[in-house]
């Protein structure tokens, strides 16, 4: 059986992980490679590295970092943040990234999804969507969820699938950082709308939330950051609990 995936997300700025990530037995928690390797050892199924560097100039350091990650880490990883062209994607895949996630650039130019999928295959295209529920409608937002668009989440997801996206990473801006649980209703609807895998993000606070996102939200994977970084949830323990609830994990 295909296992449900647990994916820690690491924010990268100028080649370093951000936020005060707290771990014992880690020489340098600011080093994305060290931290990624630790998560891999703890049983993470994949990793997402999200570059939040402010300038294009500083983003160039990302390719060198991706190469270092690919050398040291033996599980798949996705790289996202500011990717806006086929050339960006080529450089990252060549350095050893397995997938790229695209967000704002795809909203501005949906053709980009198709261009990447044709060149490198759908399997490497993760469409990241940030959305907020406004008057009972899930609206896609840009710039880290600050700027609303005209797009409806479900219509956009459907369009992205037909253009060749291989996965959808849906972040509920309502849930992000609240630790009140994933947006399971929207996720369940999304999983009926498209036939590609869905990664749920935003709202993870406790182990029950992960159980719910797989059973009620019907997600294929769950992504979280702070609950893992601050040691609130241990991935091994989480997987044990999920197994006890008859949810298939590795």
């Amino acid at each position, binding site marked *: *059986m*295909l*296992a449900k995936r647990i994916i820690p997300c690491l924010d990268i700025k100028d080649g370093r992980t951000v936020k005060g990530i707290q771990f014992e037995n880690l020489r340098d928690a600011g080093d994305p490679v060290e931290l990624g390797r630790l998560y891999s050892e703890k049983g993470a199924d994949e990793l997402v590295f999200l570059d939040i560097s402010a300038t294009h100039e500083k983003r160039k350091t990302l390719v060198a970092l991706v190469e270092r990650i690919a050398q040291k880490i033996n599980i*798949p990883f996705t790289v996202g943040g500011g990717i806006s062209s086929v050339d960006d994607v080529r450089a990252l895949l060549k*350095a050893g990234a397995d997938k790229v996630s695209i967000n704002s650039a795809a909203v501005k130019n949906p053709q980009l999804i198709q261009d990447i999928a044709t060149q*490198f*295959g*759908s399997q490497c295209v993760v469409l990241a969507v940030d959305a907020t529920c406004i008057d009972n409608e899930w609206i896609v937002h840009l710039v880290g969820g600050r700027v609303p668009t005209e797009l409806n989440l479900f219509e956009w997801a459907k369009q992205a699938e037909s253009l060749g996206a291989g996965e959808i990473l849906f972040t509920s801006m309502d849930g992000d950082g609240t630790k009140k649980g994933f947006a399971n209703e929207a996720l369940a609807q999304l999983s009926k709308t498209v*036939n590609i*895998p869905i990664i749920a993000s935003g709202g993870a606070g406790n182990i029950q939330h992960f159980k719910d996102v797989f059973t009620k939200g019907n997600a294929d994977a769950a992504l979280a950051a702070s609950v893992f970084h601050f040691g609130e949830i241990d991935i091994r323990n989480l997987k044990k609990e999920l197994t006890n609830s008859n949810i298939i994990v590795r």
Partner: protein
Amino acid sequence: MEKIVIIDYGAGNTRSVQFALERLGVEAVLTNNHTQIEAADKVIFPGVGQAQTAMLNLQSTGLDQLIPTLKQPVLGVCLGMQLLCDFSEEANTDCLGIFPLQVKRFPKIMRVPHIGWNQIITLESPIFNEIPDKEYMYYVHSYFVELSEYTIATTNYGLSFSAAIQKDNFYGCQFHPEKSGSMGERILANFLKIN
């Protein structure tokens, strides 16, 4: 020291395979040079991407003629394995024809691509030495190779398909050993030990 070659034909994930071998302490050369490939002790034929594009790339460098003639152990990974077969439904592509097998698209009842960790069972090859039955491997693909007499490992995703195949000196695995943690690396190490 054994010479290990990774066939370079512009496909994705070649670096990942090279890095995985480095982690095993093995240096592998990335090349499309026929003489170098023929002289290698082991050949790895990786690939992610699209079947037709990949075949066109192989044809443009004559590798489509060379690969079927190789005598040393050859391991096709993911698309590399699919290209060793007769025909792929992906863009209706004629492939290398080493295995008399068809590559088919997953039915719509399942989410496609098949992405993530799935179990390999019924393991019948030295490349699975010390790999427990039901071990999880990482997959990412939309097309699969049907079960046949060449199947040496099976995975189930809506239907049972070939997780790995073997015929003479040709091996193929649909999953990505280079991305499947320490167990995946062990499979690569086992392949390198084949005589």
